[in-house]
């Protein structure tokens, strides 16, 4: 529901010059109120749902990052989760007893973003001449290499602690304010996940604004030109090499930030969190929602990250009510439905649930004034 409102707001914002700015502000206030109340509503069902929502927001962040590479610049990346891993490990190693380092999060998150950014360029540089399936294979390999490194960098010097992963990762702290501790303020209980929720919502708003502005800018147009026709883009004077590297770097840095937050909220990470299926999941979110359309991508991420949880809680009771016993495991039915959804989507909405639309520009105004 909230998302439809958001989408509505987005289209309205595009047409804002035509008038109803006041209406848009009402929308913003409503959405803000809904987002502020949401965690308490969810907490009343169960704290687990707040955690699930937080994870969903992390997936939104990841999808928005991948959307820059895949949706805007048209570079198929199957190893995106590697940047998430880089950010997550950067946080874990700099804020845990593993190296006995406990840097504050506002120092580590930029470091993680920067590091992921460097890895993005490292992946981008050798793949500049590749497109489509060839690029997909190389990026897939890159994602696996990072994971295998994380798995094996416990010898000869123990850096990543191998498959055991890193434990006891610090939560976010600002002075004495600890994100993991439950606090009561004005009679309301703020649990750890609820605090992280607010942080994540702020982060996702910042990232959405950055994405919207990038897309509708000289840089975003250059990316879209490369996606549409690289030869023509170059003939128009676009330095395709730099622009592609920039897309990889920007996308990767978003992944790095998300990874850092993931580390802190989970308190434990291991290479197992960063397998190929995760990359494919994020890519599915981008494709399902509508490649290149920021609102579509957000919708895709929310749908695909909530669907399994909803199924987990509904499949068993429904089957018991219908047949008196459980016939198909939730996990099995989840993959079944997931596959079915993707096939149906490719058949009926190949451009995604919310395909990217033409950006109409206000030209009437100009025509009136000679």
């Amino acid at each position, binding site marked *: 529901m909230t998302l439809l409102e958001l989408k509505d707001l987005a289209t309205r914002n595009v047409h804002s010059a035509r008038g109803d700015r006041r209406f848009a502000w009402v929308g913003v206030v409503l959405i803000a109120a809904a987002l502020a109340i949401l965690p308490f509503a969810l907490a009343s069902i169960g704290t687990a749902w707040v955690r699930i929502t937080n994870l969903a927001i992390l997936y939104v962040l990841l999808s928005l990052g991948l959307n820059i590479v895949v949706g805007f610049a048209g570079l198929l990346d199957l190893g995106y989760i590697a940047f998430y891993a880089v950010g997550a490990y950067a946080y874990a190693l700099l804020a845990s007893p593993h190296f006995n380092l406990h840097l504050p999060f506002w120092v580590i998150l930029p470091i993680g973003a920067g590091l992921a950014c460097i890895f993005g360029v490292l992946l981008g540089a050798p793949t500049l001449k590749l497109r489509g399936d060839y690029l997909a294979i190389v990026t897939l390999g890159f994602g696996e290499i990072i994971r295998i490194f994380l798995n094996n960098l416990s010898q000869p010097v123990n850096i990543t602690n191998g498959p055991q992963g890193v434990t006891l990762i610090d939560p976010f702290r600002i002075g004495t304010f600890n994100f993991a501790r439950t606090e009561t303020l004005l009679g309301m209980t703020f649990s750890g996940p609820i605090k992280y929720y607010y942080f994540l919502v702020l982060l996702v708003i910042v990232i959405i604004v950055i994405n919207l502005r990038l897309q509708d800018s*000289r840089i975003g*147009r250059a990316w*879209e030109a490369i996606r*549409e026709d690289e030869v*023509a*883009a*170059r003939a128009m004077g*676009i330095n395709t090499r730099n622009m592609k590297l920039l897309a990889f770097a920007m996308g990767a840095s978003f992944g790095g930030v998300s990874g850092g937050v993931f580390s802190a909220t989970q308190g434990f990470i291991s290479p197992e969190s960063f397998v190929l299926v995760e990359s494919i999941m994020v890519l599915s979110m981008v494709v399902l929602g509508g490649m290149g359309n920021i609102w579509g991508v957000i919708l895709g991420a929310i749908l695909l990250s909530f669907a399994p949880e909803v199924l987990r809680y509904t499949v068993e009771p429904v089957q018991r009510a219908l047949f008196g016993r459980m016939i198909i495991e939730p996990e099995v039915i989840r993959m079944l439905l997931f596959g079915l959804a993707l096939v149906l989507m490719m058949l009926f909405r190949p451009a995604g649930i919310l395909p990217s639309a*033409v950006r109409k*520009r206000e030209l009437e105004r100009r025509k009136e004034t000679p």
Partner: protein
Amino acid sequence: MSSGDADVLLEGKGISKRFGGLHALVDVSFSIRRGEIYGLIGPNGAGKTSLFNVLTGIYEQDAGTFTFDGEPLVGTASHDVAKRGIARTFQNIRLFANLSALENVMIGRHVRTRAGVVGAIVRDARTQAEEAAIEERAYRLLEYVGVARRANDLAKHLAYGDQRRLEIARALATEPKLLALDEPAAGMNATETSGLRKLLEDIRRDGTTILLIEHDMKLVMSVCDRVLVLDYGRKIAEGSAADVQRDPKVISAYLGGEIALAPANRA
């Protein structure tokens, strides 16, 4: 050498390009003067598009040099060529199909504008002003080529002739000194072609030199000041449209072998 050639915009000297055993261009030399419409003709496979691609940095020539606007143009990447002031269109239209007509032209402004990532995110006053100027200019260019009413439509939804015009507008957006058009009249009917002729003359009048590959001889002969004729990668004639038309080598290239030569010799 270039002292007396102040009015020469582009000079090609001994340009050669080989694809495996195929000699696409053999020792081609030519010069284009400022403010003229320079035709490039020849039968299919004569090397016209190859010359375009070598000039615009899509391929690198095996031998020869280009001098553009008084300075050499050697081993320059495609995007640098655009920056130097050569913009092109493509034989098989290459628009950014899923972007609006206006955005296509706005992308053409890329090379003459500066906003970076920080500017795009922060949207400071300078970036905003630049964006407004880009949009304004792009719209004016759409008006100039006559497709302004389709500004907000996807490029792929435009009629064929309009797509050709849009490609010209996009190229003009890079503020070229030399506009290189690869068969702009291909597939156009007579009305569209005469509209195109008017557009080409307008562009020249407004100060842009044009290099034109074209198969439509009526258009070439009516609009071009001078013409270069290629055949099998070699230059067989260069001169005014009227002279070239009467050149026996040109007639033979187009009509084929000795049969065509015979009446020309008799005349």
